[in-house]
Structure formats: C-alpha cells, structure tokens
C-alpha cells in the first residue's frame, strides 16, 4: 500500500462516481434493449406459430387467416386500394370518428366526473341514471343513434362517445372522490376558490385516474367507431371488415384488425408521452430508483 495524497483521493473518488453513473446509464440502455428484444421475440414466436399452425392446418386459415395471407392482403390494400377506395382514406375516416368520439367522450366523462365527484347531492341523484345508461347494449344504442343522427359520421362518433364516456366518468368520479382531503383543505385555506380547487388540486390528483381510463378508452372509441361502421357506412375500417367477413376473407378481417391495432398503438404512444409529461413529479418506486 502506498500513501495517497488527499487531492489524488478526491480525484479518484470523482472518477469512481463518474464510472458508477456511466454504468447505471449502460444498465438502463441494456434494459431497454432487453425489453424491445423480448417484445419482438414474443411477436416473432406468435406469428411463427400461427403461420406454422396455418400451414399444417392446425389453425384453420379459412377462419383464422395466416400471417403471410394477412401480409399479402395489407400489401394489396396498400398498393391497389380497397373496394371502397384507397386504404389511407378508410383509416382516415375511422380515425376521425374515433378521435372525435374519444375527445368528446373523454371530456364529457371528465367533466361529469368532476361535477358529480365534487357535489355529493348531484352524485346521489344522478349517478343512478348514469348506471342505467351504462347498461344499455351499445349495439342497440347504435341503431337508435342511426335513426336519430343518420348514417353519417355523427352516429359513429356518438357510438364512440358512449363507449368512452362511462369508463372515463367512472374513473374521474372516483379520482375526484379520492383527492386528499388535507390537500383540499390546504388549498381552501390558502385562498383557492372552488374553481381553483378543482383545477389545481382535484384535477392533478385525479390525473392518474383519468389517464388510466384514457389508456383503455381509446381502444373502446375505436371499437365504437368500427361497430358504427358495421351498422351502416360507406367508408371506414369497419366497412372493410364487414365486407371481408361477408366474402369469407379471413385475411382481410385480420388485416383490418391489425391496422386498427397499429392505430391504437400510435395513439397509445401519444397518451403515454402525455402521461410522462403530466406525472413527471411522481416519485419512482423505491426498488426502481437508482442514480
């Protein structure tokens, strides 16, 4: 052992911290690669099994399609268009309906959740009617909407709205009710008006509730729009599925569903982005924390 001067020691320490932090970053990167790798592995394994199953007729491709067939179908839609026009138009139509429905339903759900969550009397009186409305089969509602709103975009949007509304409402309502009472009291004492309490305490604390419901309800909005298109439409992914079903084109049905899934994932990615931005104040769980 040789003696080390204090400055050397300090320098050594600083180096070791830099090294430790670089290692931590490398670990994070490695983990990210691992996650992507595992996801891909699962995807490849599933598709491989499916394709094999279809080849050996264990999974009847007549009913359940096959990855290669689906791919061909998508390719043909992309290059040659669908019977209803170009593929991107179908996607655009469905996406527009879904988006409108999602936004209206989510905003409505959040607003209703906050209003009823903040006012016990209103909640006691009206929540029973919301429960009733939620038990109405959407397919039947679909027909009612078509009668009332016609076969245009409005009825699909309405159907997407009712798919989204209840999920978001339920969560927003409960989220509001769960807001910490001490924090509300603190805001009140600091001088917040009821409206300010809502915007600066209630909404931030209900945010993770609302976001959780948004994650699941975009898929629901998509389902609503597609069901609406099923019931009657001249454009859209739902019609594409309906036509494919009618023509025993399992590949077409699954191809359309995969396109829907990709749409959902893109929006999901955006919601997650938004979520990370909104809840960046949140502490990491102890076991995931590391410099």
């Amino acid at each position, binding site marked *: 052992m040789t003696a080390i001067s204090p400055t050397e020691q300090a320098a050594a320490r600083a180096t070791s911290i830099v090294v430790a932090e670089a290692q931590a970053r490398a670990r994070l990167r490695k983990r990210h690669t691992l996650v992507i790798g595992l996801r891909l592995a699962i995807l490849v394994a599933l598709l491989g099994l499916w394709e094999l199953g279809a080849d050996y007729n264990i999974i009847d491709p007549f*009913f359940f399609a096959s990855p290669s067939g689906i791919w061909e179908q998508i390719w*043909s839609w992309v290059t*040659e268009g*669908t*019977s*209803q026009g170009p593929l991107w138009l179908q996607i655009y139509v469905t996406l527009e309906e879904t988006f409108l429905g999602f936004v209206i339903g989510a905003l409505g759900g959040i607003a209703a959740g906050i209003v009823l969550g903040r006012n016990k009397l209103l909640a006691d009186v009206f929540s029973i009617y919301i429960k009733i409305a939620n038990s109405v089969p959407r397919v039947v509602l679909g*027909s009612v909407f*078509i*009668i009332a709103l*016609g*076969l245009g975009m409005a009825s699909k949007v309405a159907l997407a709205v009712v798919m989204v509304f209840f999920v978001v409402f339920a969560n927003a309502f409960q989220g509001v009710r769960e807001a910490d009472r001490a924090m509300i009291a603190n805001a009140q004492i600091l001088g917040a008006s009821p409206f300010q309490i809502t915007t600066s305490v209630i909404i931030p604390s209900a945010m993770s509730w609302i976001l959780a419901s948004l994650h699941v309800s975009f898929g629901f909005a998509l389902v609503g729009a597609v069901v609406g298109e*099923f*019931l*009657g*439409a*001249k454009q859209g992914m739902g*019609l*594409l599925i*309906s*036509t*494919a*079903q*009618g*023509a*025993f*084109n*399992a*590949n*077409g049905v699954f191809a359309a569903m995969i396109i829907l899934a990709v749409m959902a994932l893109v929006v999901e990615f955006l919601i997650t982005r938004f979520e990370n931005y909104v809840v960046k104040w949140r502490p990491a769980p102890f076991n995931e924390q590391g410099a």
Partner: protein
Amino acid sequence: HADKITIIVGGMEKQIYLPAVLTQQLGYFKDEGLDVELVNSRAGVEAENELLAGAVQGVVGFYDHTVDLQSKGKYIQSIVQFSQAPGEVELVSAKHPEIKSPADFKGATLGVTGLGSSTDFLTQYLAIRNGLKQGDYTLLPVGAGNTFIAAVKQDQIQAGMTTEPTIGQLLKTGEASVLVDMRTPEKTKAALGGDYPAASFYVQSAWIEDHKEEAQKLANAFVKTMKFIATHSAEEIADKMPKDYYAGNKDLYVQGLAGGKAQFTPDGRMPADGPETVLKVLSTFSKSLQGKQIDLSKTYTTAFVDAANK
C-alpha cells in the same frame, strides 16, 4: 345538378344484392345524371328505419319487408325487382345424410340468419309444406357467413338456410349439400309453389309522389343492369365487381354466380304471382301480419320499370 341520392344496401358484397354495386361499377347512375351514394348496412332493420326516417332515399333489400311494414302502417314500395327467387338454399349437413327432404326435419335444429328474418319464414314454410307442425323442429339464429359454417361444423344445426357465398364455401368443403335450392325460378316454384320475389329496390311510397323523375332515372339505371346481367356470363360480371368481394377465390365466386344468376329478373319487373307467394309465406308465421289486411298493390309498382323497358 341532381341532388345526392343515398341508397342503403343490405350487404354490398352479397351476390343477391349484386345489381346495386354493379350499376355503380358500370356507371349507369352517372349515365342517368344521378349522384348516387351506396351505403352498406348488413342489419336489415337499420336500413328500413333509415328509409322511414327519411334519411336515405332507397334501400336494396328483400321485398317481404314492404309487406311486413305495411302491416305496421308504413308504406314502402318496390320499384325495381332484382330477383324472382330468394337466392337462398337450404343446406343439410354432411353429418346427417338421413335428412333427405324438409319432411325429415322432425327433431332437427335448423339454422336461420335471424328470428323473424326471411330465412326464418322460408324455412318454416318449407317444413309446413312438407307436413310438419311448428314445434317439430327448432330454429337457431346463427347469422350468415363464418358463424353459419361453424354451426354446421360443430353440429349445432343439422340443416340451415343461407345464401352465396356461404353456400359455395360449404359445398366446396363437402360439409353440406343442397337440400332445397331456391336460386332459380323453377326450383323456387317447386319448393314454394310460386315465384318468390326477393332482392328489390324499394323506396317510401310518399317519396315517389314528389320524385317521379329520380325514381324513373333510378329504374332506368337498374333495368339496364338487369339486362347486362342477363346478357353476360358470370365471369364477365365478376370482372366488373370489386376485388374485395371475392377475396382471392374468384373461381368460387364465379361458380356461385353462375349457379345463382338465374334468380335475377331479366327486366326488373315484379313476377306476376310473386307478391301472393310472399304474403302466403309471411302470413303463415309472422304474428304482426295475422288478422291484418294487406294491399299488395301498394307494395310495389311496375310503372317505372315498364317505362324503362320501353
């Protein structure tokens, strides 16, 4: 410039409603100066409701709805008749060779697309005509397409009524065979005792009053199509249809079309005794028709077709 006309088709890809899309594909609407928009809706009720609500101008669907709706005080009229036979086939599962005619339906479960649908009434009519009573058989609504095939495969139905392309699909795999064919006028007469007008183009009676011109133009376009069908081979017709409608198996589509082409009227005209047959079938089973007086002359008109054929 003509107003936009919206027409609901009860399944654009279905062969029985083929004239609707074909007219569009052949450009006959445009030739007439019409701006027609076809909307797909596989659930029949939606189409009628929309028509009654005035949101669309016409529907391509089964003629029997005009009769049924009249019993509820709503008046709609077929102005072009696409087919003189239902285009339906009663298939029997290969697992049940003992069923050789509708007379053997006793104790069987029979597939129909939906309760109260045309297939429901036709199936029951076949059974009754062959000496059975209601209650001797069970009806199961299984829809059309995949679910129908699955029901046959899983032996949940022993026989069932459906249309192309489900027929072709089941025949191809040999899982079912034809028991009663109602795709041609002759065979339909044999099975039902008369012509059975099915696929048709109908509109609200009130609409005709103020839209004679449009109605005539529509009739002209459709009649042209009916003639096209009558004068072209199944293959030539299939070539005109969007690719998605036969999705990779064009042969089967053509085969089905060849077998069923005869169901289409050559001129869009209502077969003379057709409406009676329909009324007979319906009034035997449909509760809402019982005890009601139906004026068949208000359910269709040949005026426009006649003019078109001139």
